């Protein structure tokens, strides 16, 4: 059912509760998204101040995760939601967790940025960071939009994008590994880039998780642990 009609309950307070969950989650999404942009900019343009900012925002994200979790618990206890309402609360709780983990990964990138600034920049890998960074950022935007609009097609797109990111990540790994073999003195600095790439790739995975939660929320389908093709098939079948 694409139409979730969240504002149609007999109880207006229940409408307000659910809208509040949604708003809080999207606010948190906005914060985490900014963290990701800042972390990638910080490492690609060697900006330690920006990296520090990412670390500061992380506390705020953590606090929001806890608050939103409490609010989900409250709605479950007070309203005993069913059907789409139940899926809404569960999806918010799960997306909340994925967003927080994305924040953690952005924090790792920021720490690498600070480290590279202090110990000299890496000879390679910035192009890949910028590229994968922008792919992953797009995924996060799409995942959050698919939630905001209950847009299943967009959610499926995120799953496609994730495969692309995985491929780009693998090819970057190959290239950087080759470079390290040619110039072993660069290993420790290139490793910092590799870890950052790994963190970005993980952010992509979390965005794909969010897309799965959106499909669950809107369609009631559990599409975890299946291929993208199978996911598309199930989604189309349920229309």
């Amino acid at each position, binding site marked *: 059912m694409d139409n979730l009609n969240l504002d149609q309950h007999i109880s207006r307070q229940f409408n307000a509760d659910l809208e509040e969950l949604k708003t809080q989650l999207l606010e948190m*999404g906005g914060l985490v998204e*900014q963290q990701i942009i800042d972390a990638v900019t910080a490492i690609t343009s060697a900006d330690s101040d920006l990296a520090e900012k990412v670390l500061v925002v992380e506390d705020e994200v953590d606090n929001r995760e806890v608050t939103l979790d409490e609010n989900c618990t409250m709605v479950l206890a007070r309203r005993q939601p069913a059907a*789409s309402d139940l899926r809404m609360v569960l999806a918010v709780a799960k997306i909340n967790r994925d967003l927080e983990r994305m924040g953690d990964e952005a924090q790792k990138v920021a720490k690498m940025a600070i480290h590279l600034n202090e110990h000299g920049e890496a000879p390679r890998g910035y192009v890949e960071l910028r590229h994968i960074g922008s792919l992953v950022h797009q995924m996060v935007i799409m995942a959050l*939009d698919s939630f905001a609009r209950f847009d299943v097609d967009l959610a499926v797109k995120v799953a496609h994008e994730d495969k692309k990111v995985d491929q780009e990540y693998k090819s970057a790994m190959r290239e950087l590994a080759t470079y390290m073999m040619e110039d072993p003195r660069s290993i420790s600095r290139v490793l910092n880039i590799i870890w950052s790439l790994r963190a970005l790739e993980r952010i992509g995975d979390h965005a794909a998780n969010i897309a799965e939660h959106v499909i669950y929320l809107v369609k*009631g389908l559990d599409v975890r642990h299946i291929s993208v093709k199978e996911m598309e098939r199930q989604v189309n079948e349920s229309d």
Partner: protein
Amino acid sequence: MDIAQPLDKIPASSSEPAAGKAINVKEGVDQDTPVPAKPVGNPFVDDPKMKLRDVEVFYGDEQAIHGISLDIGKNEVLSMIGPSGCGKSTFLRCLNRMNDTIDICRVKGSLHLEDQDLYDPKLDVVELRARVGMVFQKPNPFPKSIYDNVAYGPRIHGLANRRSDLDEIVETSLQKAGLWKEVKDRLHSPGTGLSGGQQQRLCIARTIAVSPEVILMDEPCSALDPIATAKIEELIAELSENFTIAIVTHSMQQAARVSNRTAYFHLGKLVEVNDTEKVFTNPDHKLTEAYITGRFG
């Protein structure tokens, strides 16, 4: 996308919908939303205890039930939910001909308990009600002792020849109803002296004393407190091992907790029948969804 596209060229941030965009609403659902001609889901089962086809009920000229077809499976708990006046109680009362007591009520269609036509004119209704027992909304023990309340049915149906047989029936019935421990020392005090929850369990003991095959329950917990309700629900789970149970309830949580399948009634029609788990997490019809999520009622 270009490789190495600078981050600042990336399109607008997604925090935008958070700020401005309202929650997506297309069309609403209300009482006038059309009911499907055939119920969605699985109204029929492989081994039905009761087969009900094209059931129509009229009160005078007023049609209360519009052609409902439904199976109740052996040893299943089927819950029937729906807004007030949707016909769920009327439908339930057809299943042991309780509607016979209302003069203006007419029932059409084919209703079978296994091979027995429920509306066969030759059928003894008292016999039928021994096979299909009923528990009502308000506990209604007879103004007799606890013992006699339970022994009444077996006596009139001649199920016990000796006093010791009757004693045994009373004891096992009270045990199955989870009331034995509480009343075994005062079997001869009046049933009306028990608490509401105990009285309801006494009524259940009275119902099962005649070894019915099907138990109908019409909002059995709506007059009870949460503890008594929990005990009845526990009892329903245990009883379903030996009996087929159909329960009408206004409590959706109760339907979700106790039943295997749930039927959603709306304006005298059947909208959806599905496994309970499905109905409460991802119902097929939007009317069901609207009702169980409290969007109208």
